[in-house]
């Protein structure tokens, strides 16, 4: 049913319809890529994606509709493709490509692998698997209006990891816990706080003041003394944040006063930190209640893009804690929440907590829209860029397959080339 492209030689056309290919990722690039592959005559396609469909995907991942939100991307993508090409042979995996089940043998079963990923870890992994299996890989990526496509073939081109790539920025613990100076520090702190209170507690995601901060000590012996003191300081510091919160029944006012008043006052006692820095100013819940709504916010801007005053964020903090508390209760004993930028109360919580901390440390507060960008590492995305890149990927795929044939041909047969017309 699917016609072969006129400009392809017969051999290439045959190779296209018989070869087996793997598409890693069924998101922005993946949807466009699947469409292009099927309409170019590829018949045997396997697609893998661990993600589920979200509303914010619908502005470009056109194989998905509103009714599919929450379902597996790979699965729905396969179903949508089969709707317009029932004869395509597609296998979908709702799984992570880094799962050891997908071993070198698995990769070797394909003639070509195409990435449609959005993170470095997976790209590195697929790169290595393709090198090990000696299968050509077409790597690609998009962000906003920019995109790129690269062909990686062992022994012919450099691989994905040949050139060092800039690492994602991480911040030292004491900056997050004691001396934030930029909004991003406060946002990271708020995300840690979410996990400490509602999610999986992580020793690397402490939010309380760091008494072992080397900068806080007047002399080196002090640091050591402080460190041991905090270890021995049994009760208060030893109890986990979550346990403490639970003991108060996740009372928003008690949480507010601990995080934004008591802990800040504790930081102030580490006076060396504030010699050259502007000292944080603790908040008081009672005072926050007095603050009315900021008149400036009553304009036509999208709600998400408004910046509230500190009273507004205090109320938002209270509200989101109450909502998350009941979410947690609904899940039962020993439950944990996972932070998701697209889950409104989770996003509200981070917006409120981050902004309160920004205010305390004399930084200009940010709108929910901006906090979401930073907290969620959001990369803007549109249909057009993905369409362009996916178009390029398939053209490169044809060239890769063609050169494989050429290589074989120089070894074995004579040069035959006959144009095949669409009919």
């Amino acid at each position, binding site marked *: 049913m699917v016609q072969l492209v006129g*400009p392809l030689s017969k051999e290439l056309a045959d190779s296209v319809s018989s070869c087996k290919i793997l598409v890693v990722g069924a998101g922005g690039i993946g949807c466009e890529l699947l469409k292009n592959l099927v*309409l170019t005559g590829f018949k045997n396609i396997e697609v893998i994606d661990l993600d589920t469909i979200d509303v914010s995907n619908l*502005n470009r991942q056109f194989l998905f509709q509103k009714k599919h939100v929450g379902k597996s991307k790979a699965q729905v993508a396969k179903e949508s493709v089969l709707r317009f090409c029932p004869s395509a042979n597609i296998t979908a995996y709702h799984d992570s490509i880094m799962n050891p089940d997908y071993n070198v043998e698995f990769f070797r079963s394909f003639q070509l692998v195409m990435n449609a990923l959005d993170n470095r870890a997976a790209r590195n992994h697929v790169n290595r698997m393709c090198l090990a299996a000696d299968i050509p890989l077409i790597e690609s990526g998009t962000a906003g209006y920019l995109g790129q496509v690269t062909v990686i073939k062992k022994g012919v081109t450099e691989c994905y990891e040949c050139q060092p790539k800039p690492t994602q920025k991480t911040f030292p613990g004491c900056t997050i816990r004691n001396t934030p100076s930029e909004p991003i520090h406060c946002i990271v702190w708020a995300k840690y706080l979410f996990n400490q209170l509602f999610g999986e507690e992580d020793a690397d995601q402490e939010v309380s003041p760091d008494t072992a901060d080397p900068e806080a000590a007047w002399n080196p012996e002090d640091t050591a003394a402080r460190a041991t003191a905090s270890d021995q300081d049994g009760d208060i510091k030893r109890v986990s944040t979550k346990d403490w919160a639970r003991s108060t029944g996740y009372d928003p006012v008690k949480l507010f006063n601990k995080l934004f008043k008591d802990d800040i006052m504790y930081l102030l006692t580490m006076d060396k930190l504030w010699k050259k820095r502007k000292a944080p100013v603790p908040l008081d819940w009672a005072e926050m209640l007095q603050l009315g709504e900021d008149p400036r916010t009553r304009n036509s801007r*999208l709600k998400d893009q408004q910046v509230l005053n500190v009273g507004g964020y205090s109320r938002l903090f209270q509200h989101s804690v109450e909502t998350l508390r009941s979410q947690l209760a609904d899940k039962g004993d020993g439950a944990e929440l996972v932070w998701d930028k697209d889950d409104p109360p989770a996003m509200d919580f981070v917006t409120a907590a981050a902004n309160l901390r920004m205010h305390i440390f004399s930084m*200009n507060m940010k709108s929910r829209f901006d906090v979401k960008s930073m907290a969620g590492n959001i990369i803007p995305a549109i249909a*057009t*860029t993905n369409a*362009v890149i996916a*178009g*390029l990927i398939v053209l490169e795929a044809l060239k890769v397959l063609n050169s494989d044939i050429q290589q074989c041909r120089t070894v074995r047969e004579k040069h035959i080339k006959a144009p095949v017309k669409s009919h």
Partner: protein
Amino acid sequence: MSEQKTNKEQRYDRQLRLWGDHGQEALENAHTCLLNASATGTEILKNLILPGIGAFTIVDGHKVTGEDVGNNFFLSCESIGKNRAQAATEFLQELNSDVSGNFVEESPDKLLDNDPEFFHRFSLVIGVQLPESTCQRLGAVLWSAGVPFLVCRTYGLVGYMRLVVKEHTVVESHPDNALEDLRLDQPFTELRNHISSYHLDSMDKKDHSHTPWIIVIAKYLEKWYNEHNCQLPKNYKEKEVFRQLIRDGIRKNENGAPEEEENFDEAIKNVNTALNPTKISSAVDDIFNCVQCENITSQTSAFWMMARGVRDFVQNEGNGSLPVRGTIPDMIADSDKFINLQNVYREKALQDAAVVSKHIQSHLQAVGKPSESISEQDIKLFCKSAAFLRVVRCRSLAEEYSTDTFQKDTITSCMDSPDSEMVLYLMLRSVDRFYQQHSRYPGVYNYQVEEDISKLKLCVNSLLQEHGLSVNVKDDYVHEFCRYGTAEPHTVASFLGGAAAQEAIKLITHQFVPFNNTFIYNAMSQTSATFQL
């Protein structure tokens, strides 16, 4: 109603971060017309429907064939025999229920015969796989109606786009490297006053190291002026001396070593750009000198009204400078100092915008238009973007094709490299010629390929001869284009679909600068080029 709004915000979140809500609004108010729902056409529409264009109308007289189904995602076997406009509209509509889809079962030529004014209602007309004569006819109609026209074509492994718009104004061009508008070379009164409220030498350590770098540079500039006859540091050498002056101003601790003052480091880094003389670019000057800016009538568009308002400001209250932009970059400072400084610029920007607004109001009044015709919000945005205004003017198709006015020099010099994308343009022109002579395109059926090669070659030669072009078109290209046989490979259509939709979005949102005016994509070599023809 508001739940609907939140849903849209969620759905469009990732693109709002690129063109903002006013860009989205422009998109949702647009109605585009597509001629021919071939693969290229439906791919373009897909990329406009997904982000939420207001409405689309497909004009197509063809019936769906098996060949269509083979390369078009938006047609199925059941569509065969149906009108292609209708079949495609049904599928495209599924992409986004917010978008209104319409179709007309008519060929573009018939429509031009019977009702050319039909096209006047659209924000943009996109013509795909149109024969040259239809293009020319439609081009003439749209040119006089002032409707932008985007011509697109996939021909084998070649993609082609041509933008035809008489005048396209851009307020938000989003330049890649925009310099800040700090006015340090000619501080306005409020800025001067604010600067003089700082006394660096008598500040305590904390304040000194948290003073915005803009103030630091301003203060040291005053020192410099005293010793240099009020002249800005002009060249690298002078700027180095100036940087050292600032460096020397860094406080020292009790051991004589320099303290860590990041704000001073920032000041030193920014000396290069912060001292550039404030002046208006030639592009903006040209806009002010345009006849549209000079002759304000009741027909004058908002853009030119506002341009005239800004020009009046420049020539009077602005003393040769544009309204202050009002933004300053992030910097090391305590928040009080930062906010105060930011407010100085912000308030001046508001003041200047108000003056511009008054000028605009008087022009509106003079031509009998109500003052609400142009919103304060638009005026503020215009003033903020004043340094980056752009106007794009494309040559008409008539000018491109006429033997009197075609771009002979451009074509000839490009063809100095015989494999330049320009040869693909000449081949496209040649296959159009072939179509005119033989009522079909070359090499569509296998048996035609060989004999059409020589026929196509004749077309190439007559094209070159008629235009007095002594360039060499290699035989390889003639063979190649015969082999293509008007195939429309899906993946090339997909690429072009993305590129064309992106230009369409630029035209509709008036953000970013569209190409001017011809784009050629070579899918074999993965190269492309733009020409002004």
